[in-house]
């Protein structure tokens, strides 16, 4: 379980997240420089597997340095892709670490 963190930021993702746009989002997340970054996924209209994979890699990178990236407000069409790729299973393991 995540403990309450004062040093946190919230990033809102909008539109289409794929190989040609995901680096903008990753740059925004990186620029936050906070211990906890929350990615609000409500505005995502489309995301491909590359987009999800690179966000997951970013979470893993941050985790290794004592930071974290969490995904919230995940719409159904995005959650379906998460489910298919086994991302929720991976995220569950991070909670247990």
């Amino acid at each position, binding site marked *: 379980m995540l403990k309450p963190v004062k040093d946190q930021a919230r990033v809102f993702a909008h539109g289409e997240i794929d190989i040609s746009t995901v680096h903008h989002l990753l740059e925004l997340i990186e620029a936050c420089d906070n211990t906890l970054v929350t990615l609000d996924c409500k505005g995502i209209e489309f995301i*491909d597997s590359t987009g999800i*994979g*690179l966000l*997951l*890699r970013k979470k893993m990178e941050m985790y290794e340095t004592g930071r974290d990236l969490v995904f919230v407000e995940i719409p159904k069409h995005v959650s379906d892709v998460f*489910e*298919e*790729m*086994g991302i929720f299973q*991976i995220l569950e393991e991070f909670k247990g670490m």
Partner: protein
Amino acid sequence: MQHRFFEYLETVPGATEELVAAQKIQQLLLQDDLPINQGLTVAGVSIPAYQLSGDYYDFITDDERQRVWVLIGDVMGKGIPAALIMVMLRATVRCLVSVSDSPGELLSKLNNLLLKDLTRLKAFSSLFCGYYDEPSSLFYFATAGHPNPVYYSAKKNSIRKLEAKGTIIGILKDRIYQNHSLPLAKGDLLLLCTDGVLEAVDKNNLQVSYEMVMDLIMKHKDNSLQHLIEQIIEGINCGTDQFRRDDVTIAAVRCEEEGGND
């Protein structure tokens, strides 16, 4: 990425020739001899978003154990970087086929073997893996984060998406992939695709759904597998750049012998 790709072609001497050679190698690898098996017919098509693809399909015969392996995978990204990893994935899978007793075991071994390289490359891959066991007419399968296949039952004249779960390859070590089995009977059909098919946009700007793919299968299921795949590609317009966002790959398998029941 596309911009960088064209920059590479324009600035590196001989890049176009290199690319054409790489395309030929990839097509040769994909167009390997199809298994000659009386119990099963197979077909596959892969269309890159750019010149090279990170997608992959393969059919491998294990004569000793009377199995035909069916694989379809998708390496993260597109173009040359994805194609290089795809070749690595294909070679590793081919080595593992003879030393794996089940699709789940193959996926677990593959994940651990490729984990270090994929982590260093910040990449990953999805892979659906299955084999048709001729003596029992059972199709065994497991998935590593790949879109599930669609299954058509000839006896019931019904179609549905198979349900299997598993995490993508190259993220965490020591993953366990659950095995599933499905009895196949004469006329039964499995259609496998990469997410490029389900991310394509049709003429009406609607994203392709499983339902659209299933409707097309029902409409063209009696054709040859090659023709069926062509009809699906035409039906969802993912054969044209205008509608395609990603590499697109479809593989199909049809059971040709009596036996099995659903």
